[in-house]
């Protein structure tokens, strides 16, 4: 079963505008949520994370919002830049000895000039 879902396979945004990527989850046991960015022929790289005790975390142009009641999180990129064009994966986990990441299916972001 798909515990982490990204319903938009792709998104196109103009340079300078805001990009909003969405993610939904079904497992209420998840405590931490992360966003990874992946360029072609490279492995995913960590972008930003948020704990379930927070509703917002900001790092430069990247902000993640968490709505626990709706089991929904979003990544905002503002302003968007051409170098942000990549596939973005949402992931979640519950800390523990055998904690593991559960990934969404990814959203391909294209930032156009």
């Amino acid at each position, binding site marked *: 079963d798909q515990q*982490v879902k990204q319903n938009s*396979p792709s998104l196109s945004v103009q340079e300078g505008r805001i990009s909003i990527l969405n993610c939904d989850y079904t497992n209420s046991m998840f405590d*931490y949520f*992360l966003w990874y960015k992946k360029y072609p*022929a*490279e*492995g*995913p*790289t*960590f972008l930003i*994370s948020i704990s379930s005790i927070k509703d917002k975390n900001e790092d430069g142009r990247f902000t993640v919002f968490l709505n626990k009641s709706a089991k929904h999180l979003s990544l905002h990129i503002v302003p968007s830049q051409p170098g942000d064009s990549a596939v973005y*994966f949402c*992931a979640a*986990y519950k*800390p*523990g*000895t*055998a*904690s*593991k*990441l559960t*990934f*969404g*299916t*990814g959203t391909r972001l294209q930032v156009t000039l």
Partner: protein
Amino acid sequence: EAGVAQSPRYKIIEKRQSVAFWCNPISGHATLYWYQQILGQGPKLLIQFQNNGVVDDSQLPKDRFSAERLKGVDSTLKIQPAKLEDSAVYLCASSPPARGAGEQYFGPGTRLTVT
């Protein structure tokens, strides 16, 4: 600091053949993960090692997949015999001691094509 190294980067084999992938994690990282990423999907954990012991291999198809991490450093993942549906990118990741799943560093992956 050197990142996670994987080889080969690309591999094409016929079905029923065998193949092996190699991973060298970041120095000092105790936990090592192997993921399978099928086109259009997110990475799926196959197996997780803590040092040289297996922590989780619940999603590893053990009838054809095997993995080992000798001496708690390098790891190999083997498929024998391969099936068409094994075509995917195989990602290796590692994390520092006591940092858990939330701090993983990924290698570039091995793209496997089974014909």
